[in-house]
């Protein structure tokens, strides 16, 4: 089945595009979508440890199952963890 993928910020720059589609088997999770994406863009792989995700415009876990036509977004870390003080 096909799902839509959105990429932001550094991930978008590395992939060279902000949206694409991925083909994943029935029963796949968001983590499987990420792996399919990394198969296409090997340079994304190191970001797997810090990536978070959304499913159809809501926060989701990487373990969440996806369905045909779902929109999956991958999010690099946000600034909040940085300790400036």
């Amino acid at each position, binding site marked *: 089945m096909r799902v839509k993928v959105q990429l*932001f*910020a550094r991930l978008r720059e590395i992939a060279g595009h902000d949206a694409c589609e991925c083909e994943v088997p029935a029963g796949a999770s968001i983590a499987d979508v990420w792996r399919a994406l990394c198969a296409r863009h090997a340079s994304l792989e190191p970001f797997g440890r810090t990536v978070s995700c959304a499913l159809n415009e809501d926060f989701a876990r990487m373990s969440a199952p996806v369905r045909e036509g779902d929109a999956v977004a991958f*999010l690099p*870390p*946000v*600034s*909040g*963890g940085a*300790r400036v003080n």
Partner: protein
Amino acid sequence: MSVGRLAVTRDALALEPLIAALEREAQARGEGCGAVCTFVGVVRKTHAGRPVRHLEYEAFEPLALRAFEAIAGEISAQWPGSTAAIHHRIGRLEPGQSSVLVVAAAAHRDEAFQVCRYAIERVKQIAPIWKHEFFEDGDAWVEGALCAPDDEDARREARARACA
């Protein structure tokens, strides 16, 4: 209400209309707020000593609004009777321009300060908004922690920073 409490926008941010809206709301609801605490994030001229030419903020807008709604919900649960507003600007910003506004209104100042601080900590922790800094001699994405709205450690830390 003419000014939405939660917004991601490409337009310049304005504090007074947001404060006025929260005050009107508090007046309409009951005794009115007695204390308003606000926070404004401003683009600095330098970062770690390097002159900043400009910034670009990028957001996943619908999810950022959901994050703001989640933060507002956390605040209502922990500080009943208080209200918070969050406006974040995106796009290109120059040094001196405001990137984010938080307004917190409550009956007393203790609560207003806590709500305001909690809100900005949570915005930095969970809103899918990324800062791209452009220097004279290069650029850098500012990345801190994993964006995890349900992470209890992060919430605890935000609460600790908010409550003396």
